[in-house]
């Protein structure tokens, strides 16, 4: 093993038509599409099979109508209403229309969906999925037991190796190369050698997933550190709707591991500490299948009123998710992984006992702003050669609150659209121009971490904890002016402090520590943007619930936030209109 050389230098310059950053659902689908005609590489910090798409459980939504009558139009409407009207309606329409073909395509590529009696793809109920614009719950979620994401990831990876897609695994992208508003490549750090490489490309697509690790209780992977959005934010790209972060109502108490909404889709019921089915109070029609933001608020309200399982009114209390009435056969067949998680982490069997649950930070509705072809946009124009898709992107089809099963659709539909746009774009794009010192900024950031060693700077482990606590406490399910101000100043102070942080590991090869530190820096930057965007929006909408502004205010706030951050970490906010071309905003009742 070679010792650290003091400063990392560039080893290789690679050149491709298209570089896809990320090997999850969105990245792999885009790669399959783009590589049909363009020279394409997937650059991923994890082996693609380890991506967090593999953790998705409950299903992928598409109006196949295999069990109940269903229409893409209803799906699109549910998406818009579920997103509290902050959804761009044409984008939602595309999502719902193309979902049907996308699901058939996955099945043709071998995805092992669960089946109906007739041998068709099985579908189940999910939160906010309705027929005829809200009349009744509809079975729309196509699923492979409760490991739908695992099957999507496996299937797409299988197709990629079949089609000889080129992979650079365990290469962590640390910077983007911009020439004005044209992207010409990325800089990646290779785990195995500790070297920085330049990837020149006519088109770059970010598909780096979410950033729930900024919160203490989360369903997200350790790798969910928002690298793509943070890299682009530092390069001057505004981030859209960062204040909208989804708290999923049913995470395993204190661990945050997700218990899919599919459990309620199969008939599971939420109960408070007194054994009452409290959703009857909050959403009389859809009950336990109301959208996630509403159920998370209901749970927190019950807990704070002293009706949680312990009943002490403390925020870390929990409620019960009861599936015992479903019977052993349904549980073992429809939600086997959930049963396994309960046995492993709680030493209970959901066949026999209710599951202790609390809201868990789950999904970033906001992120890199794109148009419906995956091109990154700011408030004025589209960037050239710069794309994003999947959880890191904001099209926006999820608005202020994502409906369950719509992320997997988003990956496939918009991953594909971005991939095919890229394939077209690179045909006429000129060769990427990259200056010799393109990796300089990244090199300096890494060198600084080494140089800080022994100087007694900030303790990264302690900072990580502090970030997760302030974000959870102050920018959680409920927020107000005071709490968000506190979070913002905490995060900005941490941003300062990060410049003093160092690592202990001096070696070059397999130095995962350096990469974790760069990830922490990304989370801190996104924490600043999230807190600032949240503080700025003076209304409650979807997942953004303010105690001091409890109502939605369409007159002033029916618009997307576009938040930019300068070198010093101060944030400026601009806006982008919402596409309301199909449905008029209405109050959101279920």
């Amino acid at each position: 093993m070679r010792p650290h050389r003091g400063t990392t230098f560039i080893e290789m310059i690679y050149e491709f038509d298209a570089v896809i950053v990320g090997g999850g659902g969105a990245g792999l689908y885009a790669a399959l599409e783009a590589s049909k005609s363009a020279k394409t590489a997937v650059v991923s910090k994890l082996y693609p099979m380890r991506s967090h798409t593999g953790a998705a459980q409950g299903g992928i939504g598409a109006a196949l109508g295999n069990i109940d009558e269903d229409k893409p139009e209803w799906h699109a409407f549910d998406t818009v209403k579920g997103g509290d009207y902050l959804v761009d309606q044409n984008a939602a329409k595309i999502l719902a229309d193309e979902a049907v073909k996308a699901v058939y395509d996955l099945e043709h590529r071998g995805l092992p969906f669960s089946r109906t009696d007739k041998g068709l793809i099985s579908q189940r109920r999910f939160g906010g999925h309705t027929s005829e614009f809200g009349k009744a719950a509809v079975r729309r979620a196509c699923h492979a037991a409760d490991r739908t994401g695992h099957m999507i990831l496996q299937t797409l990876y299988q197709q990629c190796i079949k089609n000889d897609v080129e992979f650079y695994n365990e290469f962590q992208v640390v910077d983007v190369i911009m020439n004005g508003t044209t992207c010409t490549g990325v800089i990646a750090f290779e785990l195995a050698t500790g070297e920085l490489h330049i990837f020149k490309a006519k088109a770059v697509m970010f598909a780096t997933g979410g950033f729930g690790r900024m919160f203490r209780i989360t369903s997200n992977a350790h790798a969910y550190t928002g690298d793509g959005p943070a890299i682009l934010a530092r390069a001057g790209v505004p981030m859209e709707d960062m204040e909208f972060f989804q708290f999923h109502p049913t995470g395993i108490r204190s661990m945050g591991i997700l218990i899919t909404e599919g459990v309620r889709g199969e008939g599971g019921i939420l109960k408070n500490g007194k054994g009452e089915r409290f959703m009857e109070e909050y959403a009389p029609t859809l009950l336990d299948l109301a959208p996630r933001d509403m159920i998370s608020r209901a749970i927190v309200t019950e807990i704070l009123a002293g009706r949680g399982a312990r009943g002490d009114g403390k925020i870390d209390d929990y409620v019960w998710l009861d599936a015992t009435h479903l019977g052993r056969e349904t549980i073992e067949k429809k939600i086997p992984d959930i049963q396994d998680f309960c046995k492993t982490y709680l030493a209970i069997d959901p066949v026999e006992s209710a599951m202790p649950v609390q809201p868990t930070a789950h999904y970033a509705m906001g992120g890199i702003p794109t148009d419906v072809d995956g091109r990154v946009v700011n408030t004025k124009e589209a960037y050239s050669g710069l794309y994003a898709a999947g959880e890191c992107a904001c099209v926006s089809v999820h608005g202020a609150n994502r409906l369950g099963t719509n992320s997997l659709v988003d990956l496939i539909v918009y991953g594909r659209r971005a991939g095919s746009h890229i394939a077209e774009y690179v045909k006429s794009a000129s060769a990427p121009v990259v200056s010799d010192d393109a990796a300089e900024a990244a090199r300096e950031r890494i060198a600084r971490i080494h140089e800080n060693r022994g100087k007694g700077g900030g303790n990264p482990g302690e900072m990580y904890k502090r970030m997760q606590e302030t974000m959870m406490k102050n920018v959680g399910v409920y927020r107000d002016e005071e709490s968000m101000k506190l979070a913002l100043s905490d995060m900005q102070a941490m941003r300062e402090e990060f410049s003093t942080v160092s690592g202990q590991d001096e070696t070059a090869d397999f130095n995962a520590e350096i990469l974790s530190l760069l990830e922490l820096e990304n989370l801190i930057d996104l924490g600043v943007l999230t807190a600032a965007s949240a503080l700025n929006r003076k209304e409650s909408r979807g997942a953004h619930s303010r105690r001091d502004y409890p109502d939605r205010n369409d007159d002033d706030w029916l618009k997307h936030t576009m938040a930019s951050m300068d070198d010093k970490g101060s944030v400026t906010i601009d806006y982008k209109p919402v596409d309301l071309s199909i449905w008029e905003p209405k109050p959101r009742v279920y």
Partner: protein
Amino acid sequence: MKVTLRILRNNDSTSHESVYKDYPVEVEPTDRILDALQYITWNVDGTLGYRRSCAHGVCGSDAMRINGRERLACKVLFQDVVDEKRWVREPGKKATQVDEENTGDDIVIAIEPLMHLPVQRDLMVNQTKFFENFRAVKPWIVPKEEPGEKEYVQSEEEHVLFDEATKCINCAACYSACPILDENPDFIGPSALVHAARFVRDSRDKGLSERLEALDQPNGLWACTNQFECTKVCPRDIKITKLINLTKRELTKYRASRGESVNDGK
């Protein structure tokens, strides 16, 4: 409670030697082993190398030997292992549990990298060979017929035949636990055979005929002698040995129907 993680480390830039290093940590019985490893890297020793991502047993990153047994660090709680006797395996034999000098209040939990794959650093192993073997079975659908506009019709009974094999997360726990690989490093390994079974048993796929090269040879299916160690460690509870035997049977039938014999090297 106080426990000591005794981690087999290989992080010496000159000698490349593996040495055990002790890390005393304060943990809750319900903490995951991975939680303690995370605590160590962020607060005690940033040089400790291992892979992880999902933290709940679905991504396959953190298979390692915990007290001598292949497991995912994120799927083992301290309460599961603190009272456990250590597992050991003589080359080519099944693993057994032995008494160790785990005396007094000292709870020591041994953490070691997977076997049969070269160590890169500490608990990180080079998975190249493992993934090559995976690729060798053509782990993608080779459809019997062109798809129509809608889905292929497949009954739930047909689906159940291969459903279990689709659960594999490529963690390589089975590859490490397999006694055959102790002595025959060219054996394709249990996981690749699980992926083969997944397609061979799928009514939509052409099946065996496409995958004979990897399966029907002495280092393919036939190297397996039913040791069941893979099945015992699989964190996804896949009955690996059973799937291998079912595929062997299919293959024998397939060859017999053509008047051929299998290529088991015997």
